[in-house]
């Protein structure tokens, strides 16, 4: 399957890290391009969900991808709409298969686009849905294990790219490992997200974005910072200022305006003042 090509997971992961590091509004498209370059996909697109649960196209690698999304959201039917609505992955080996009866309205329209396999992954932070990654290919057939692993990693990277778009930080980037999805597998990252939600009155995506921005500005991994939050050594106040319980001092923030007297590096924190 997948054209018989082995997926180079290492190259894909590096491409995803580089794509997220692009930052801003270009990062999402870079993620989609990495997906098409390193996975057997013909095209990919990302649609964002706005606060009102309204969809907003973010980027597409080609005209067919854009058309597929447009058709689905126009008709209110199709795998992408379903994933958007349910927050679940929707994998369709062949949209043109007569036994595929889930989206009768869209299936007819899809035939004209040439897309066959359609694979949609929700982009979410726990229960908070922020969008979908929509991949298609022009040949029918299911994703094999390697394709699936790569697509899920692409979806993780897409989550970061959307968080950057909606919660822009100060443009500083930290450890490269923090740019892929790997931090999303750690329980303490999600526990810390919940604690920040309660501390600062944030929703889950905003809380995760703050955690990430802080880790970047501190030059530490997200997991390390999450450990500090869970151990109650570090907290985020409703006014957006972080404080470090160990020193009792306001810590340097993840945005320049947070703390005018922020410490330039972590070493300073450890020295008695």
């Amino acid at each position, binding site marked *: 399957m997948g054209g018989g090509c082995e997926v180079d*997971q290492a190259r894909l992961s590096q491409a995803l890290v580089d794509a997220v590091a692009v930052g801003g509004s270009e990062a999402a498209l870079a993620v989609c391009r990495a997906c098409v370059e390193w996975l057997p996909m013909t095209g990919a697109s990302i649609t964002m969900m706005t606060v009102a649960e309204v969809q907003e196209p973010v980027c597409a690698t080609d005209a067919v991808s854009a058309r597929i999304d447009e058709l689905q959201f126009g008709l209110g039917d199709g795998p992408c709409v379903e994933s958007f609505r349910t*927050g*679940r*992955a*929707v*994998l*369709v*080996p062949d949209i043109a298969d007569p036994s595929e009866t889930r989206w009768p309205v869209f299936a007819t329209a899809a035939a004209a686009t040439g897309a066959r396999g359609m694979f949609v992954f929700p982009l*979410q*932070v*726990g*229960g*908070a849905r922020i969008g979908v990654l929509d991949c298609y290919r022009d040949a029918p057939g*299911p994703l094999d*294990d390697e394709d*699936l*692993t790569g697509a*899920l*990693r692409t979806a*993780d990277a897409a989550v970061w790219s959307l968080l950057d778009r909606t919660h822009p930080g100060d443009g500083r980037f930290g450890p490269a490992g923090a740019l892929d*999805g790997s931090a*999303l*597998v*750690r*329980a303490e990252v*999600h*526990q*810390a*997200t*919940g*604690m*920040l*939600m*309660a*501390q600062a009155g944030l*929703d*889950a995506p905003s809380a995760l974005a703050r955690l990430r921005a802080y880790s970047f500005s501190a030059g530490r991994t997200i997991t390390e910072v999450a450990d500090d939050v*869970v151990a109650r050594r570090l907290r985020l106040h409703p006014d957006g200022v972080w404080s470090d319980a160990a020193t009792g001092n306001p810590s340097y923030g993840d945005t320049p305006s947070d703390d005018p007297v922020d410490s330039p590096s972590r070493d300073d924190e450890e020295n008695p003042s």
Partner: protein
Amino acid sequence: MSTPSAAREQALVTTFVRLADTLVADYDVIELFHGLCGDCVSLLGVDAAGLLLTDQRGNLQVVSASTEAANLVELFQLQAEEGPCLDCFRTSAQVHAGDLAADTRWPRFAALADDNGFTAVHALPMRLRGETIGALNLFHRSRTDMSVDELAIGQALADVATIAILSDRNTRERERLTEQLQAALTSRVIIEQAKGVLAERGQIPLDEAFSRLRAHARSTQQRLSDLARAVTDGSFDTAPLLR
């Protein structure tokens, strides 16, 4: 008069009848996993049990454990890199270590297990025809070689967990499996977030937050993941849970 084995037989019957009842109803897979881990403790006399699932990105993730104590979760989680669970998952075969002190296979794992007072560990695969989707991990605080009968019961419990993931009569099995696995992992993320919210609001430990969440879900007959979702999206007033 019931002998110990008759008592266990009765407990087994009760457990599997309850599991069958659950599987034909509308259940919460995380809640069911949590019950299975508890069953391992009560039926098999193990001291701790945990379920790990593949996230299909190349990692094993802890989705449920008989205790949410942070050190134990860490012990389960370490096995994403090294340990009996990972070996079990990769080889799709049971892995036994009845005496970790005499075992040289996983030095980091054995050291952390020892720190936590565990001396024996067994891992049983969650298999679905050609596919392995995770592993059930059983810990003992004394050197233990589980009997053939105990392993058979443990494997049956692992098989129930596998069936629970693939709940329904769907022909698109391969696609369905991914959809269900990812949904189960998402449920777990929401529960972790909700634990964090409650732990912070009530200034209580994370494992205590989980206990209260679960107790409230039970007493109000709602799904654990639905309640966790309501906690994280703010639609549930957490005050009653924190009194």
